[in-house]
């Protein structure tokens, strides 16, 4: 809402400068988004052109004599439109103006122009900084008072107020005036909408029937005859323009003016174009059509409320009038509508038709049914005054289920409970009354508050508490800390695990990334086969911000690979990136499954001793190193089985299992997939379902005493078929009761072993809790292991 302070001053004294007023409104009411200033002129006043003569030395210039409050001044004027009888903006020597060439400030100096002394200047809009117009001088309205400083006459400050969805009153001058009154201690002057009722009874001139009272709580109609439709007076046009509305004609302008004044949207019909002068408020019938004021022919549906006459719809209730009954220069009689429509219905209709209007923007916020008669009377009054109209006696007021005047009753205790302060009742009363509430203080500690018609949003004690505290000032609140009992711990084990995982991956040297949860279908297709996408389609957003972000990702892989690709272009050492985020999966019914997932990717060349890139590219075991590190930290025993998964290279892929349950994947990204991301070289990826992992995560480690007896280390080189996993061999070794640990230190294939076989070298640690092992005991144990290896994995000792 653009609030002209000049206009606002009609209703309330402005006791503080605009900046301070804006600050108070922002703190207590609603944000003032902008302060727009017009004027600030010094040495400029309203003048009357009394004479215009040719310049003796120049064809294009003239000498204008301007009368001001203190005499006559002759100035040289180049404007083609200057003429005697005009009211103009006259600037004296020394006036502060805008330089028409630079747009910067300038001070008007005395000057001789072509030999004639100019005692000042008649200003164009551009010199006053009003617009870029400088072809002609600014001609003021005829009633402009000569001698008045222009700043007082034309200057204004506009506060541009944001809107709250529940405060239609802040879209009205009176509503804002009440706020200003409350914030500055001034009193509000409401218009007195009295007018001579010289016509016949309104009820004889028009009829109103509300067929759908659920969508129209109240309909007030006034009739004004003998109106002269024409332009509005300048002051009214100026005020509409200041508020950002376009003047049309006096009748329409009055409806808009009163809407801006009271916040109650109004509509004027050409009374003589309404069949039988009858208003019927009803739902539209399926397929009914209406051409609205903007010239668009619209097809209506029964969820829309219309104003109809017996022949059909004449207006879209609360949204826009119809073209057929529009007020035109030929209109002689006006039927004025001031009604209360159901906010949600108006909003639905305007959304359905893509048609928002000043009226619908107010109705959707919920306009009080107490407002229509007030606004109707005010509009009729102005039509009598400004359009020469003759008002019918009374108004037609159909109000099927009159609402009781809204009151809120609460105790001092309630205020204290909500706010944490205990304001004295007279202070509470004073604040609320300044806002227009009526307050009855019932001893000992009860308040009964009557809500003014423009504040339909105030309904419960908490609302009143807010009214009080926002005006009284939040600065008056003390800062206190919570003191009640704590709530018991709410375990979130999956969250705890995810945060641990983040720390572990970070500490291992990986960089965390966060990528978008929504991805494009193309990106998904790069890693997920189309059969899979078809069988289990990813969840789609109906109205995505862009096609880049249309699908809820069922996997983190594509986002991570894209991030990798972007960073490889600018990085020469190894990149190790990870993300923990949710993936989204359909399930039977209800909300989708959100699975906390860890994914990591490693690529590039390992760092050398200096931290720069070495000649060695990272490989499968770099990626596995991170995974093993994670599981070691979490106390999880994981297994790795050769497997195949889409997007990963067969032969370089492992399924990660814990206690036989699959929890993730590890593998080389398939080079064909990498190509789609424009990555050359190799990349290795891992993925862990944290929810599946959670039950296997170890708790506090159980202490085992360290053996008092010395450990013995022996090397053991076993030759097995290449296909035998090292872990199987190791498991056999570890199974021996005297073996404490077995660490692989070499894997060899080549001339020294038969073709198709490999040698695995282990450093085996033997140790007993009971005694020092003798060489013979260790020899015997190693022999037992060798025998088992031969039986179970076909292993032989390396010669």
């Amino acid at each position, binding site marked *: 809402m653009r609030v002209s302070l000049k206009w606002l001053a009609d209703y309330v004294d402005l006791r503080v400068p605009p900046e301070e007023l804006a600050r108070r409104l922002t703190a207590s009411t609603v944000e003032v988004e902008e302060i727009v200033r017009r004027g600030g002129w010094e040495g400029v006043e309203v003048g009357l052109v009394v004479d215009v003569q040719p310049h003796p030395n120049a064809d294009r210039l003239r000498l204008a004599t301007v009368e001001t409050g203190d005499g006559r001044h002759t100035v040289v004027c180049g404007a083609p439109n200057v003429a005697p009888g005009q009211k103009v903006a006259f600037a004296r020597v020394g006036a502060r103006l805008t330089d028409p060439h630079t747009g910067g400030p300038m001070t008007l100096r005395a000057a001789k122009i072509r030999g004639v002394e100019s005692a000042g200047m008649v200003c164009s809009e551009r010199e006053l900084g009003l617009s870029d117009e400088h072809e002609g001088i600014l001609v003021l309205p005829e009633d402009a008072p000569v001698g008045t400083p222009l700043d007082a006459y034309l200057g204004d400050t506009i506060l541009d107020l944001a809107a709250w969805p529940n405060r239609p009153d802040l879209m009205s001058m009176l509503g804002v005036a009440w706020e200003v009154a409350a914030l500055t201690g001034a009193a509000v002057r409401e218009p007195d909408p009295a007018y001579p009722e010289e016509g016949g009874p309104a009820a004889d001139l028009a009829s109103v029937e509300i067929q759908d009272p659920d969508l129209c709580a109240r309909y007030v109609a006034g009739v004004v005859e003998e109106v002269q439709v024409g332009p509005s007076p300048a002051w009214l046009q100026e005020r509409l323009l200041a508020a950002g509305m376009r003047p049309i004609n006096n009748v329409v302008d009055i409806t808009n003016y009163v809407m801006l004044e009271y916040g109650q949207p109004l509509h004027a019909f050409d009374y003589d174009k309404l069949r039988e002068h009858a208003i019927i408020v009803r739902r539209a019938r399926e397929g009914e059509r209406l051409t609205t004021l903007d010239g668009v022919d619209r097809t209506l549906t029964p969820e829309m409320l219309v104003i109809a006459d017996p022949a059909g719809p004449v207006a879209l209730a609360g949204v826009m009038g119809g073209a057929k009954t529009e007020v035109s220069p030929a209109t002689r009689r006006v039927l004025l509508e001031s009604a209360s429509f159901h906010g*949600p219905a108006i909003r639905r209709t305007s959304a359905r038709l893509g048609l928002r209007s000043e009226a619908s923007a107010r109705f*959707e916020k919920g306009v009080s049914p107490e407002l229509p008669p007030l606004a109707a009377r005010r509009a009729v009054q102005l039509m009598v005054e400004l359009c020469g109209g003759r008002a019918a006696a009374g108004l037609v007021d159909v109000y099927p289920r009159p609402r009781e005047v809204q009151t809120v009753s609460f105790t001092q205790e309630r205020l204290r409970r909500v706010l944490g302060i205990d304001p004295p009742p007279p202070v509470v009363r004073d604040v609320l009354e300044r806002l227009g509430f009526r307050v009855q203080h019932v001893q000992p500690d009860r308040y009964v508050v009557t809500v003014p018609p423009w504040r339909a949003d105030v309904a419960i004690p908490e609302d009143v508490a807010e009214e009080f505290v926002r005006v009284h000032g939040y600065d008056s609140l003390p800062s206190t800390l919570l003191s009640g009992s704590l709530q018991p711990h709410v375990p979130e084990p999956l*969250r705890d695990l995810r945060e641990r995982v983040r720390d572990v991956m970070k500490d291992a040297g990986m960089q*965390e990334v966060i990528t978008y*949860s929504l991805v494009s279908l193309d990106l998904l297709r790069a890693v997920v086969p189309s059969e899979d996408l078809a069988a289990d389609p990813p969840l789609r957003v109906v109205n995505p911000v862009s096609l880049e972000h249309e699908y809820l990702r069922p996997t983190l892989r594509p986002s991570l690979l894209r991030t990798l690709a972007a*960073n490889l272009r600018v990085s020469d050492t190894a990149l190790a*990136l990870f993300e923990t985020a949710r993936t989204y999966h359909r399930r039977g019914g209800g909300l989708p499954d959100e699975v906390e997932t860890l994914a990591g990717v490693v690529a590039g060349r390992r760092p050398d001793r200096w931290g720069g890139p070495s000649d060695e590219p990272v490989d499968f075991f770099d990626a596995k190193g991170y995974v093993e590190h994670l599981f070691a930290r979490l106390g999880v025993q994981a297994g790795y089985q050769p497997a195949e998964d889409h997007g990963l290279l067969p032969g370089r892929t492992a399924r990660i299992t814990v206690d036989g349950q699959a929890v993730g994947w590890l593998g080389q990204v398939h080079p064909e997939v990498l190509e789609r991301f424009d990555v050359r070289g190799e990349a290795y990826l891992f993925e862990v379902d944290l929810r599946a992992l959670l039950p296997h995560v170890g708790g506090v480690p159980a202490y085992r005493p360290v053996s008092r007896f010395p450990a013995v280390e022996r090397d053991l080189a076993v030759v097995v078929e290449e296909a035998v996993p090292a872990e199987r061999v190791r498991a056999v070794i570890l199974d021996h009761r005297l073996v404490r640990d077995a660490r692989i230190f070499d894997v060899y294939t080549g001339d020294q072993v038969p073709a198709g076989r490999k040698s695995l070298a282990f450093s085996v640690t033997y140790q007993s809790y009971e005694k020092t092992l003798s060489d013979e005991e260790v020899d015997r144990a190693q022999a037992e292991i060798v025998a088992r290896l031969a039986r179970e994995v076909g292993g032989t000792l390396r010669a």
Partner: protein
Amino acid sequence: MLDELRTLEERALTDLAAARDESAVEAWRVAYLGRKGRLTLILRSLGNLPAEERRQVGAAGNRLRETLEAALEEKRRALQAARLAAVAQRPLDVTLPGRPVPFGRLHPITQTLRDILGAFSAMGFEIVEGPEVETDYYNFEALRIPRDHPARDLWDTLWVDLGGDGERSILLRTHTSPDQVRIMERLQPPIRVVVPGKTYRHEATDATHEWMFHQVEGLAVDQGITLADLKGTLEEFARRLFGQERQVRLVQSYYPFVEPGVDLAVDCWICRGNPDPECRVCRGSGWLELLGAGMVHPEVLRNVRYDTERYTGFAFGMGVERIALARYGIDDIRHFYADDVRFLSQFR
């Protein structure tokens, strides 16, 4: 025999003096004092001598052993001193870099999120999480944001097509506030929780807007909780995060699920009392808008069947990116999810 020992002593000491390094010294030790060393052999042969001579020669032999061992020790010390002196002659270039230790980092949003949560944890708030894909009920209806109410305009929503029929009932949560309702349905007062998580809006991206961002929701419900408690709790939070001398300011705001509703700003910790229009944190306003808050609306409490005569509560919600932008002085929110390592690696 004693002469032989004397000769041996002379030769041994001469040889030891001639040894130039550790290996020569070790060879000398083996030659004279080893298991088959000369002195050892002499002492071993004593058994053939008569008793009186055996005693004399044995004593002399043992003295000689002690002499040689002492000489050996002294020689070793001398060699080591010489070696260490040589090190000082050719010192290391201590300015060369050390061997790299793995250096990972958390995303700046994760770091900021943790600092925020840490501040509230210390004040007794539990951390819980909720779903990102949410129903219209929890995201809007239960929070007094009915369909066809202009309050909906405050949240531009991304709708999820669950059934393939375009029905708009499932959405990406536009704020973490639905978890207020979920928590209250699950638990009874006293409640003191914070809820971090991703949130989504149908929003055009620019330097200050992202369609995906993180929020932290807060909720405290109990007997006797007031707006003054909200102010104090958030002031304490602001001080923990931005410094002990911070001031907070409440201004009027509107969220359908709180009453009264406020926005909270913290005074700028960069330009303090002298607002600077170029300030990267407050842009000259002197204040940084931190979050929206208010007293939980009684209707929301009734929606979860709490006794509104017994309980009151406050709630707040803050944007994590906004706070991260301010604390690091980042100029563009789009950096966060562009995931350029050159950007991310600055946040250690």
